[in-house]
């Protein structure tokens, strides 16, 4: 048994403590915005926040996550109107969309610690998130747009 605090709500789940957080979030709790892509922290599709830090949930165990504040894409903004989500629509970023929850979660952690990121900061923070559709130029633009919105 483990108790997880996800998006402000407490969930008790009957899993081994070594179970990857990803599978609990996705397959047990059916918060499917968090995606499975590689299972080895190489693609970033499973990115969530643990106490505000971007982590790969495929490489985070339930034991490591217990007692911390877990935020998934569903909890980023109650109305789905986080400045990044607004910017993502304005820049028409997603193609297939599968990696985009992870992209947005990585970008949100970046903006939370660095509200005015340079191009280099963005590339450094985002190069762990793969997008096979290669929407990277639009992701970059959307992060800048959101950063401007957050600052103003």
């Amino acid at each position: 048994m483990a108790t997880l605090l996800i998006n402000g709500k407490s969930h008790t789940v009957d899993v081994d403590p070594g179970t990857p957080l990803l599978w609990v979030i996705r397959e047990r709790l059916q918060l499917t915005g968090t995606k499975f892509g590689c299972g080895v922290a190489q693609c970033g599709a499973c990115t969530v926040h643990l106490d505000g830090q971007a982590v790969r949930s495929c490489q985070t165990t339930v034991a490591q996550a217990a007692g911390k504040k877990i935020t998934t894409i569903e909890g980023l903004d109650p109305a789905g109107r986080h400045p990044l989500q607004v910017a993502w629509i304005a820049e028409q970023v997603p193609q297939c969309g599968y990696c985009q929850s992870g992209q947005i979660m990585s970008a949100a952690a970046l903006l939370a610690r660095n509200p005015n990121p340079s191009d280099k900061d963005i590339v450094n923070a985002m190069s762990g998130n793969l997008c096979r559709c290669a929407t990277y130029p639009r992701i970059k633009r959307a992060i800048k747009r959101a950063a401007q919105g957050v600052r103003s």
Partner: protein
Amino acid sequence: MKTSLTRRTFLASATAAGAALTIRFPLVGPGAADAAAAYDPNAALTITPDGLVTVHITKAEMGQGVGTALAQIVAEELEADWKDIRVDYPTNDPKYGLMLTGGSWSVNWTFDTLSRAGAAARLALIDAAAKSWNVSPADCVAERGVVRHLPSGRALRYGEIVARVPITKTFSEDELKQITLKKPSEYRVVGQWIPRLDIPEKVTGKAKFGIDTFLPNMVYAKVVYPPVREGATRKAVDDSAAKGVKGYIATVTLPQLVAVVATSYEAAVKARDALKVTWDPGPNANVSTESIFAKFAQAKDDPNATPWHEQGDVKSAMIGAARRHEATYTTDYVAHMQMEPMNCVVRFADGAYDIYTGSQFQTFAVGTLAATLGVDASKIRIHQQYLGGGFGRRLEPDVMVETALIAREVKRPVKLIRSREEDLKRDFYRSATLQSVRAGLGNDGKIVAWEKTVIASHPGKRWGPDFVDKKGLDQFALNGADHVYDIPNQIVRAVPVETGIPVGYVRAVAPNYTFFAVETFMDELAKLAGVDPVEYRLSMLGSAPRLARVVKLAAEKAGWGTPLPPNTGRGIACVSAQEKKTPTWTASVVQARVDPGTGKVEVQKIVCAVDCGIVVNPDGARSQIEGSLLFGVSNALKERGTIANGTLAQSNFHDYQVLRMNEVPETEVHIVPSTEYPTGLGEPGTTTIAPALSNAIFAATGARVRQVPLLPDRVLAALRAKA
């Protein structure tokens, strides 16, 4: 409450490039509808009394924005108000004809049909409104979802007509064909910057992909795959240890597969790991990249190579040529690496299979599933979901078949999720290839003879007789080798080779490698002739003026000929992809810097010019071109699938690397305004990159790299060979 419709089928008859595929898109002339019922005039759309228009998208939405684009086509002629437009992705049904998404075909194949579907529904709505007012339809117009009687000013919204007025006008096939469609100058929806309909739910995590399916009482399955990609046989299965895993439910042992089923994904993984299966590795256990290329090299001199494309008299022209040149090009295996690993959920109940997944080729999947499971096609229902990337991977029904076989045994809904490792090892790759090209030049430097042999595995052979031509060749393994340059004497030969490594269709398919050889060789010949590569191409594009135009445009926008820093160069490539019959004229100039010490190539900038005819959604088009170019950069720079012990040597994103944000060059896209019939955009850009980049490396260093990917060690070897 729906009345029975008189269904007439007419052929939109798109024929897939010589393959024995006839594309039937049945479109029914608007049928009669009772007042108050939904108006369901044809397979393309439904209008409900609330005024909402649902466009039924039978193409897979995998990021190309096809739902929005096809809905725009319908809305244009329907004169619908865009805010009333919805889309859905219906379950397979014979009424939708061929359900296949690929080849950059979607808009090209459906533009006319969907335009007529929308127009016919509009005319029927006008007719119904006019009858209800007892006026002539000629005095009525439809605009933004409202029919108006001009002399009296009376008006009825589409929803009101559906709710209150009998719609009786129907169209025969001939009448449908005779409908006068709008001129491009009259478009109000097509060509507009309309935001994509699927994007809002893709930024909140709400969009549902196949992997997001849950059914009551569902269990998880894991298949044990053999260590060799093809040809291994199973000797024994010992599930005694697996049975002890918490959550284990059953072992499924079938001729086709062995699998375990458990209560959760992680329990299924544990049980799978505990299952002991012994294999006879079979005849392919020693297949390797080296053995495959050795086989290719042998095939190169095959006197029985099948002529695929022929014109003029190559033999005489080659003898008479003032100069001759030849080169050999190779490309390595490429994997799809779509971000959503292959997965499927199947419920088997009452003799029918409900299949939840994202499919690019429902028609093929239904046929394969029905044959494998021994049921009628009507018992197969594929509930289409968003695709977390397709790129051709989801043309294949393999995972649907596995999941359905397991679901039939366990009598509970089954979810099968492949790990990334399984996804990559069990992929159907873009074939490795070897191409030899020979040309003879006249005294003026122009090409008088062209001879090429394409050696590759052909995916169509695995799919069956419908997917190869009479000579046993898969057109989709060869497209592009029949380029559009004015060369009087040409022969292209093909040798399909079986290797033990199954191949499939990966974004932009054959033109990735055929145009790599054509466009790199063209640069070599330009050098030999002492002519600028852009001028050289233009001198042979007299019969392809639209391609010549994008070549000029790309060169001009890229500053072709202007000086660059040391070790930096520009290369150009132009293509008639995806198919010569329905080309999107595309040219790219790539600017790259080569580190002469390490051979590392930095792609700095891509300028791409495209003429695809009418553009339905300009931003969607731009997005597709950007993505296709960067997919090409990833293929050209990084992706090398190698084979060892009969299987792919790579296992995940750490050793099969794809493009990341820190490697993205600046991209500049120029789309030529056009009123020509639209073609497609998902792939052509991809095919320009490897040759343009190889040509840029040559321009930067004088070293010619004839192997894709253009890896640092290959660049270094070419630099040394030059020195």
